[in-house]
């Protein structure tokens, strides 16, 4: 197979080059060879420059804006020091958003991992119609967070959707969902209550609806990689089915769990569209997140320094999530290859 393909290419190539070019073959070939040494780098150059400027250059640029005096419509890039940051960390709205996005991330990623794992283990047992179930659980991934937000906004509207069903079931005090300003008591930290705002629950449900299929898909791929021989061997050794899951399969799924935490975690920390569409910042900022505050600071209030500072904090949050996760993944990969 490999041989024939190579031969076909060769005949085509030899036919085209010397005849059409009409130049002595050897010198040209040597020139071409020399140029080709740099060709890979040359072809990558546009992408490398684009990412270099639009990712790395822009990060530095935003970093500079965050310490500048740019706080009005007029651009002022003179150095202001770290005022924007010190102000942020005594800003009720920012601190609320920070708390919300961390609570949201823990709940959303946690619930998605559990649902995804359970679904994957059930589908791995090859129930009737397995592909149909799988496709059903995955389709929300093809839908925009904007659409998700629009629909779930109505489903959790206190006068509609879920509450109509609860009413019919005889529930008397209907939940206020994302309109609720209640915060499950935690402890106070400066101006804000470190706790779970009830309003976030509705947003978590919508996000889980959209993304838990992703966790399932990753776990399913992981489960398919665990050979039947291994399970059979464990069975021969007298392990029960639940022991096989606990001792053999779950530990082998650890790299998948790390992947899911990285991907869903970083999506969750920068959450913007779902909140923007479904709830907005909410009364008392119970559903605000830094990404929404960043957008409104920058493009509605012209507080560019503040907007830039918020996005630097977001970047730090994502790095803080990813660095240990990537480190753990590399370790498990090394352990697996040994």
């Amino acid at each position: 197979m490999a041989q024939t393909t190579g031969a076909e290419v060769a005949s085509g190539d030899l036919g085209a080059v010397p005849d059409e070019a009409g130049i002595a073959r050897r010198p040209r070939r040597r020139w071409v060879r020399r140029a080709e040494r740099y060709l890979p780098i040359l072809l990558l150059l546009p992408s490398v420059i684009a990412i270099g400027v639009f990712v790395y250059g822009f990060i530095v640029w935003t970093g500079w804006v965050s310490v500048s005096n740019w706080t009005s419509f007029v651009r002022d890039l003179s150095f202001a020091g770290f005022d924007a940051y010190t102000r942020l960390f005594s800003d009720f709205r920012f601190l609320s958003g920070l708390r919300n996005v961390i609570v949201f991330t823990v709940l959303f990623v946690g619930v998605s991992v559990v649902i995804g794992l359970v679904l994957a283990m059930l589908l791995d047992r090859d129930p009737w119609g397995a592909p149909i179930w799988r496709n059903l659980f995955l389709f929300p991934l093809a839908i925009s967070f904007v659409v998700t937000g629009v629909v779930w906004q109505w489903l959790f509207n206190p006068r509609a959707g879920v509450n109509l069903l609860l009413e019919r079931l005889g529930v008397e005090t209907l939940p206020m969902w994302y309109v609720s300003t209640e915060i499950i008591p935690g402890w106070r930290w400066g101006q804000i209550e470190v706790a779970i705002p009830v309003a976030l629950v509705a947003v978590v449900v919508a996000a889980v609806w959209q993304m838990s299929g992703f966790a399932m898909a990753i776990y399913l791929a992981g489960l398919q990689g665990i050979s039947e021989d291994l399970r059979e061997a464990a069975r021969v050794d007298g392990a029960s089915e639940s022991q096989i899951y606990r001792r053999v399969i779950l530990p082998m799924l650890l790299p998948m769990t790390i992947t899911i935490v990285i991907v869903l975690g970083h999506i969750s920390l920068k959450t913007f569209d779902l909140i923007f569409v479904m709830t907005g910042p909410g009364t008392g900022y119970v559903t605000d997140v830094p990404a929404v505050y960043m957008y409104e600071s920058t493009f509605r209030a012209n507080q560019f320094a503040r907007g830039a500072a918020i996005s630097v904090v977001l970047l730090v949050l994502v790095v803080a999530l990813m660095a240990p996760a990537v480190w753990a993944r590399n370790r498990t990969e090394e352990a697996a290859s040994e």
Partner: protein
Amino acid sequence: MNKALARIPLYAFLVLVALFALVPLYVMVITSFKPPAEALISRMWELPSSLSFSAWERGFSILRPYLINSFALAIPATLLSSLLGSINGYIFSMWRFKGSEIVFNALLLGMFIPYQIVLIPLVQTLNAMGLFNTIPGLVLTHVIYGIPITTLIFRNFYARIPMEIIEAGQIDGAGLLGIYRRIALPLSLPGFVVVGIWQFTQIWNEFLWAVTITSAGQRPVMVALQNISGSQIVEFDLQMAAALQAALPTLIIYVLLGRYFVRGLLAGAVKG
């Protein structure tokens, strides 16, 4: 028989999750076909008494220009970023050079940044280029920030082509471009399908770039949909019909080519 009984909890759980997955779709579909008089939120769960296309027509007349914008954005952006990813992936898998792994990882990191961190410079740069509030400006943005994922998927794809084929091509005198054109590219169709579907879906569904870079008539459909839903005076049935229409292109792709969509999903998540 016993074995079948033992499976009841399994199916019960699957049915439960399936209902959860279908609820938003159910509400969208039935509401969008209700006669306006029945489209009340208090009757949200009830099936329509007769089929009406009123909401579909009203929704479409509003969304039409924005749907066109979204196609004008997503199609060229998908094609360009797939092509770029294919060339990058080809080089990173088959023409490695000293330091190419470092360059590859540096490109890949671009995938995980929260895009807020580049938003202010991006708006400034597009403005300076005269591309702010234009579809080409959005295309450029999506092509550039799509480089990491498309490169990754194509690199993993080309890594599966046996090196012998490439070596045979080299022995026969074909160069980097010749091998790309005659060997790699013809084998790339599945790779292009996976990357194309992935990019189209992401670009179609994207909101942050769209809402910051464009306004008024240049808006893609997701921003238009958000405007409709944010307005208190827009009827519930129209909102549901518009949401469904905005979701339909990617849903259709998922139904027809879901297998490739899932491959993109896995390829994007698992570093090869």
